[in-house]
Every structure is written in C-alpha cells, then in structure tokens.
C-alpha cells in the first residue's frame, strides 16, 4: 500500500487555455462538433482518453440509420423512431435526425469512410430492430470504429487544438450565469482552466453506473452530472436502454455488447428449453422487435426459470454459413473465440445489459441547453430517442447533432462577463478535500453499480427505487480519498457516477407509468404510448417533475 503524501501547497490552476468553442468529449458527437465549430473560430477539444479510444462510438458495431433509397422515406424513419421511442421523443429533434442523417452520412463518405457497399456502389444497408426498412448502414460490425477513424482524419485537417487525457471535472460560469468554459485535470492531476465563448458537452453516456453495462470505462455519466451541477435541466433520465444481448461470461466480461447485427443477420433467440420464445412476446417482429421488448422478454425467460445456468438465453447463428459469419460479424467471431466459443458451431449465451441513456440535457434543435453558453449533443443530450432508442439511431444522432452543436456554438457571440472565481475556488477546495477523505473510491463505485443493477434495473417499483435513492445519496456523501494527485480524477468520476445514478432514480420515481424502457411493476395507471398523458420527466437544481401533455383525441 502506497502511503499518500498530503501536498503542502494548496491546489491552484496550473494552466489557462482560451478558445472560442470548447468541446468536451472526443466521441462521434464531440469530434463532429469540433469539425463544424472550427469553421467559425478557434476550437479546443478536451478528451479524457486518447482521442478516438474513449467513448462508445468507437465500440458501436451495428450501424447508422439513414434513408438512402427511393423505396424508403424520412417519414417512415420518423414514424419508426417515434413508435420505437413510445412517443416520448421530442418531434422537432426527431425531424432533424431523420432529415439530416443522410446528409451527415454523405459527409462521412466524402471524408473517406469505408462503409460496405452494394454491387451498384451504394452504401449497403441491413435490417435493424423496430424499423420497417433495412436502413442501417454499416462497415462490417465495426461501424463506429470506421466513423471515428474517419472523423479524426477530418479533425486533423482543421485547426482544432486537442487536449488528450485531460478530464473536465466541472463547468465554470461567468458573472451573468452563462457557461464560460470548464475546469479540468490532466494525467498527473495538474489543473487546467479552459475559457470559451461557447461550450459543447459531448461526453456520451453513463451506464457504467450499472453493474452490467456495455459502456466503455469512460461511460461514467460525467456530462449529466456536470450539466446538472451547473444548473442545466435534464429530461427523461429514467429512460435507460437495456440492450437485450450482452455477454454472460466470463464473469469480468459480462455485459460486453453482442451487437444487434447478429439478429439483423438472422440470429435467433432460444431459451434453455430450446423454445424460440420471442413468438410469445412479439410474434410479428420476433428477434427484430425493439430493444426494450426483447430485453424484457429475455429477462422474463430467465426470471421464470427458462434461462441457462449462467442466467442467460441462447443467441444462435449456427444456421448461417461460416462465410456470412466471418464477413458480416468478424468482431463477434473474434471476441467469442477469445473466450472459447466458436459462434459458427455453437450458440452464444446472452442476457440484457445496460447500454444507453435516452435521457439527458434538454436541448433545442440547435443543441442549446437550458443554460446560456452551453450546448449538448450525442448521448448526453435527451429527447431524440424518447423512451427507447432504435438500434442505429445513436450513430446517426452523433453526426446530426454533433454538426448542429458545432455550428450553433461556433456562431455564438463572444462572451463578455467575468469568470465566476468563486466556483473555481470551490472546486479547488473540493479537490483538496479528497486528500483528507477516507472512503476508497473503488469500493463506492462497486457498491453504487450493484445498487443500481439491483434496485433500478429493468423491472422497477417505488419501494426499491426509494431504497436505491437513499443508498445512492449515502454513497454520494462519502468523503472519497485520493491516494495521489493522479487519483483526484477517480474521485471526481465516482462523484459524477453517484450524481448520474441519483438522477436516474429520481426520474424513475417521477414516472408512474410503463413506457418504453421504463417498467414500473407497481404502475397504477395503464397508458398507451401514443395517448399517454405524461410527457418528459425533468430534473434540475431548481425543480423536478413530470410534464403533462394534451392527449390526442
């Protein structure tokens, strides 16, 4: 055990960086925002990982939804998205998504992306769940990786200044209450202050707050927490998508994503009794039903004793030819082979895993949050996907709204107010406090993840949620301990995870109905998605609640 040496000096800002636009996050949305914003002025992009390696874009396997064929239409894409989202989506955001996804796809292709193409030299498309047309564009099963490599190529052609392995820990505001930049820690725990006219939050999601999650280690909900602390309003945070198919073993790899493309290519789900159980849950769409339906079906099979001994069901592609599996699902083949399963010959074992947070900062179609000076895009923003996201819509979202956030942040006027030194000092004192703390952040993280999985998972009820909220609050109150300056970040991250978790649970308590991914076993009101009287849940420092809406006749 290394003894920690309390620094004798007070924490202080080591470096100040000025930019017109500050982009926080280096996933698909962040890089796209930086590319666009760089047309309007100096851009600084801050990435807590090496750019391109963090976030979930690079891990996204299946695809990117865009209407590219005459037989398809943006109206159908819009309807699919709204229906899939249980009509909780913000229609204006959906409009932007379906209308602009094809244009943003064209950008990627123009910038060098290597998507699969058809014999006729069109971008190839595969079927994905909940969609009436096969409109999911792909690059094998490494679609997101292809996108991020292309975006980084493009970013390199701009004047964007990139800060890698520098982690934003909080937003800073000016005297007028506008967001004016952010405060960050570098790899060694040195403090960097970024000042900007406009700030774009593109920090991605946060399902790492769950014990079983597909997210990369970076998916700790930092943006939700930082936005909330700065005073922004978040909506629909209870809407957490559990992807139906995550790996079940080995233990440490549980939750690892098994792409929807497996089902898109024809994979079938069977329980331990070898029954193709989806016929009982959605006989029309079967395996290609929406993710919320398939995830609940699998969870129900397991809960009712028809699962495997490891608590999963089988996902089988052995009826496909080896060539199809090798060319269409190479990453899946490789990953399962590494764990001793040859998916060409034997079925995969899968179970639901926390995948995507549909909720997030409330934005306008221009990606403006409720705070002046702050923009948000990608998974950290809410409203695009409603109560359930269609597979393939997230990658499209990163590009459509990344571009929009970059454009409107780029067009933002120069900021005039003075920086609020008080909040900066407050953050420095918080960091100093971590040297005096007692709780091991690793223990708090583990406890939090188990609590969320146990009491705020796929099936919810008010007593469990209240227990979870109490526990999460106690965890949030623990005085975390940093073993060295390089460990300060870990304390900040665990703090963000606690905040994100509490936002999810609070919103889950606010919504009394079953809607999309949100299932309240104790729901007293039965609602139909299209006619539900409930709108967004919302939560901020100032207020929380659930919106009522006009019920269509």
């Amino acid at each position: 055990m290394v003894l920690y040496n309390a620094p004798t000096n007070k924490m202080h800002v080591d470096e100040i960086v000025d930019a017109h636009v500050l982009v926080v996050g280096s996933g698909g949305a962040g890089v796209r925002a930086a590319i666009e914003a760089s047309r309007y002025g100096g851009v600084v992009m801050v990435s807590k990982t090496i750019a391109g390696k963090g976030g979930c874009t690079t891990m996204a396997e299946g695809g990117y939804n865009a209407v590219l064929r005459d037989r398809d239409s943006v109206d159908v894409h819009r309807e699919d998205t709204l229906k899939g989202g249980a009509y909780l989506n913000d229609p204006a955001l959906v409009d932007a998504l379906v209308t602009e996804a094809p244009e943003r796809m064209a950008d990627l292709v123009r910038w060098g992306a290597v998507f699969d193409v058809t014999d006729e030299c069109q971008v190839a498309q595969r079927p994905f769940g909940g969609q009436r047309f096969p409109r999911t564009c792909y690059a094998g099963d490494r679609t997101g990786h292809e996108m991020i490599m292309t975006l980084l190529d493009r970013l390199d052609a701009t004047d964007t200044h990139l800060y890698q392995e520098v982690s934003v820990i909080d937003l800073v505001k000016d005297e007028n209450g506008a967001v004016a930049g952010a405060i960050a820690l570098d790899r060694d725990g040195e403090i960097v202050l970024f000042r900007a006219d406009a700030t774009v939050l593109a920090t991605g999601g946060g399902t790492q707050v769950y014990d079983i999650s597909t997210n990369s280690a970076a998916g700790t909900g930092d943006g939700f927490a930082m936005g909330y602390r700065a005073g922004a309003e978040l909506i629909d945070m209870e809407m957490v998508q559990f992807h139906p198919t995550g790996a079940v073993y080995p233990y440490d790899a549980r939750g690892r994503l098994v792409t929807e493309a497996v089902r898109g290519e024809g994979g079938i789900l069977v329980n331990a009794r070898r029954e193709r159980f989806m016929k009982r849950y959605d006989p029309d769409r079967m395996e290609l039903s929406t993710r919320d339906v398939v995830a609940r079906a699998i969870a129900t099979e397991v809960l009712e004793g028809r699962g495997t001994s490891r608590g999963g069901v089988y996902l089988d592609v052995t009826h496909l030819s080896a060539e199809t599996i090798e060319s269409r699902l190479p990453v899946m083949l490789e990953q399962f082979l590494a764990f001793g399963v040859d998916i060409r010959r034997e079925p995969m074992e899968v179970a639901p895993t926390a995948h995507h947070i549909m909720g997030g900062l409330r934005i306008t179609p221009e990606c403006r949050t409720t705070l002046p000076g702050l923009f948000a895009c990608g998974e950290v923003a809410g409203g695009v996907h409603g109560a359930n996201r269609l597979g393939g819509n997230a990658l499209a979202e990163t590009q459509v709204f990344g571009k929009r956030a970059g454009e409107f942040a780029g067009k933002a006027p120069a900021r005039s107010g003075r920086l609020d030194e008080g909040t900066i000092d407050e953050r420095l004192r918080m960091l100093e406090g971590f040297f005096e703390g007692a709780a091991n952040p690793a223990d708090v993280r583990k406890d939090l993840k188990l609590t969320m999985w146990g009491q705020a998972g796929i099936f919810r009820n008010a007593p469990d949620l209240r227990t979870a909220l109490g526990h999460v609050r106690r965890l949030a109150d623990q005085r975390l301990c940093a073993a060295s300056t390089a460990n300060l970040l870990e304390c900040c991250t665990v703090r963000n995870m606690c905040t994100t978790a509490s936002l999810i649970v609070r919103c889950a308590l606010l919504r009394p109905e079953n809607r999309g991914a949100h299932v309240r076993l104790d729901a007293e009101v039965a609602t139909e998605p299209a006619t539900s009287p409930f709108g967004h849940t919302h939560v901020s420092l100032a207020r929380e609640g659930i919106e009522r809406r006009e019920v269509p006749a």
Partner: protein
Amino acid sequence: MKTITLRVSRFDPAMDTEPHIEEYAVRVNEGARVLHALHAIRDGHDPALAYRYCCGSGQCGSCAVRVDGEPVLACMEEARDGMTVEPLELPVLKDLMVDLEPVIAKIARICPAPDAALPEQEEIEAIKPLRDCIECFCCVSACPALQVTEFAGPTVIRQEMRLALDPRDSGDRITDAIEKGLFYCTTCKRCTEVCPKNIDIPGKAIERLRELANRRGLTLPRHQEVARLIEETGRSVERTQPTFLEQVPEVIEPDGPVRGEVGFFVGCMFNGRVPQTALDAMEVMKRNGIRVIVPHDQVCCGSPLIRTGQTAGVPDLKQKNIEAFTRRGITTVMTICAGCGATLKNDYDTPFAVKDVTEILTEYGIEPPAKLDVRATYHDPCHLLRGQGIRDQPRALLCEGVREFVEMPSQCCGAGGGVRSGVPEEAKALGAKRDEAVKATGADVVVTVCPFCEFHIADCTDVPVKNLVTVLLEGYRKKDAEREGSA
C-alpha cells in the same frame, strides 16, 4: 475466485531513474483477463498504478501491454499465475503507460479529393483488411526494424497502403511510405504475429507498396540488380562455383530400403552459394531411406522479387517450377530454404504438397545420430517460424543431435525482405543483436535451417553457425566413426 501472483513493471519518473518489478498477489474471478488483475492491484493494493484501458472488449486499443514479453491487449488476454506485465517497448510515461502521441502523429490522414466518388465494392473489399487496425501499437512495440532504424512502424505503413487503395485519397502514398521506411521492413511478420486483429501488414501493405514503388521506378538499385539477374539466369545468385544441381543426378536413391519419396526444391542460395549444405541434406535423406527427385529445370521461387515488389516476372517463374515438379508426378515437394518454403506455401497455388525438411524428417522419423559434444542454440528463421508455423520440429531434431540445447529469444536476424542487400547497415545492426543474444546463451554453435539466416548470422558473430542438416550429418559421421573404432 482464485488467487494469482503477477509481477508488474513500475516506474514513476518523479521518483525513479529506471523501471523496477513489483510482485502482487490478487484475487480474481475465473476467466479474468490481465486487465482485471491490474484492476485488482489498483483497487486492493496501490491506487496509484498507472495503466490505460477503455472499451474492455478489444476494440479501442488502449490497454496494450507486454505479458511475459509478448505484446497483447490486457482486456482480451487471460490472466495467468506468475505472469510479468510490462509496458510496450515505447517511451514510458508512468508504470504501464507509454507515450503514444508521437507514433499516432506518424499515421497518415486521408486527403480526400473534392470530386471523390464512393469506392467500388472491389476496392472496399481490398481496403477492409487494412482498416481493422485499432492502433494499439503492439506491432510498433514488437517490430525489430524499429530497434535499429528510423522505421515509422508497421501500422504506419499499413495506413499508407489503406490510403493508396482508396480512390478518394489525393496524397502521394508511395513517396510517403518510402520516407517512412518502406524498405526497412524485413518481412519477418512479427507484426502480424502480435496483431490482435491478425492484419498481414507485410503481405497486404509492405509488399504491395513496394510493388507500387516498383511501377514508379523507385525500387532500390540493389534490388533491381537481383531482378535483372533472375531475368537473365533464372537465379538470384551468381554462379561462382559448381552449383548443387550440377553436382547431383535427377534421382538420388537412398542407401537402404525406400521409405518414402520427395521432390526437392533447392532454392538459389543452396544451389549457388552454399551447395555443400544441400549436399549434406541429400546425405541425411539417403541415410533415412527417402528417395529424392531433383528436377534440374527448376528455377528461382520468386521470393526475392515478391518481397521487394518486383512481381512482373513472378508468374513465369511459378509456372516453370510447378511444371518441373508436376511433369515428374511429384506429390510432395521438400524445401530446405525457409524463404523458398514460405513462398511456395503462401504465394503459390501448388498442385502438390510443400513441406520443409524438418517436417519431412519428423514425419518419417530419423535414425538417431550420435550426439555432438556441443552446447547448441537455435535461431528461428522468420519464414519458417511465422511464414510456415514451424517451431517444434527443428528443436526436437536438434535435441537428437547435440549434447545440450539452449533456447534463445526469437528475433529476426535482419537478412530478409531484401534488407541485407538493400539496407545493409540495418541488416548489420540486427545481426549484431543476434550476436549479443547468441553470446548470452553461451552456446558453442548456432543452428538454423535457413540459408539467408545462416549466411547473415555467420557474418555477424564469431560463434560457428551451422545448418541443422549439417549437424545431423556430422552426428551420423561421428556414429559411424565410433562404430568403426569399436569394431
């Protein structure tokens, strides 16, 4: 849960002058990966342990480390009791974290032409195998050329070829690749061996770019000389002495009963430069009852042309060689040159089986020779170990022939890929590293089964270098002498 012990390289630039190893005992789950063992150290022993990780599923390339010397992704490699975890062989920032920014900066970015159209399916299919790279830099850590030259690294050249294949790109990738060290690659395939995505960088990028360079007249002058020689004589080696083919009949009958029959592909080095070793091999075959058929109309296999991108004449060579053996009804062709063997196996589509001499001898089983009273080490020829996947057979045969066998870490000697002729100073520097490795074993003799390695290592060390077949033949001669002595 189980307890494992692992050793981890620690280095804090603020405190240490050089890295040191620390040992930890940690509890991990069954099936835990190296990454989970590192998490267990961080969470239970030392929160300050510095290492990178992100996706946890082999897709982002953040977590590459060396485990027992081999570069791997920590999130995919299973944790083993007793393993040693070290950073990649790149400048270390702290503990297992290395400085990646300089090498990332060397990877070329696409420069799309404004009027660029979507590539066609065929072009996409050609690019895809080169696009799987997750920039983990295992290959950069493992590449021998990087130890002694300014080579930018395998994945950097991979990207040049990916761009060269893309009709949208407007950059000059050939010139770029040459500046980044295209001709420094020995085609040892170490990069492919350590690549988590199994990208064949030498075959799919290096040799292809050298081909494109050749079309622009940018092949190295020494390589052009070799191509001229092959064109004029069918051989890559000048005749300076009676060749092997001039000294042997078409059929070499064994001493005793015939146990088997093989065709023999001799290769230019054994034919022209070191024919005695090939003659030794024939003696070993005779002794072990294997009839050898030697078509005298065989020519160079084309390897020197393929490795250096001068492929125009290769189809003709292939046709001549395939006909030379099929005309005589030969079903198994034996090679004793690792380079020829790898070429016939990987670059040809032969109607007959191709086997290395060590495979043939292992399959038939050999008469035990008398053990030579020496301590021997073995140098793995790249084109045998990685080119043909042959590791155990030569070791087993060698153990039969010597008093003591001692292992030596495997690394390219520097002779391959046209480097010995094209970039002699690099070949010399890599050869010097082999000399150090040989000396460290304390061996009396270095044994190998590739004429290029044999010839080159002999130039670089004062320890005697011998071909495996020569060692076996000497063992038989010793055995015979001992019998005569006792008779």
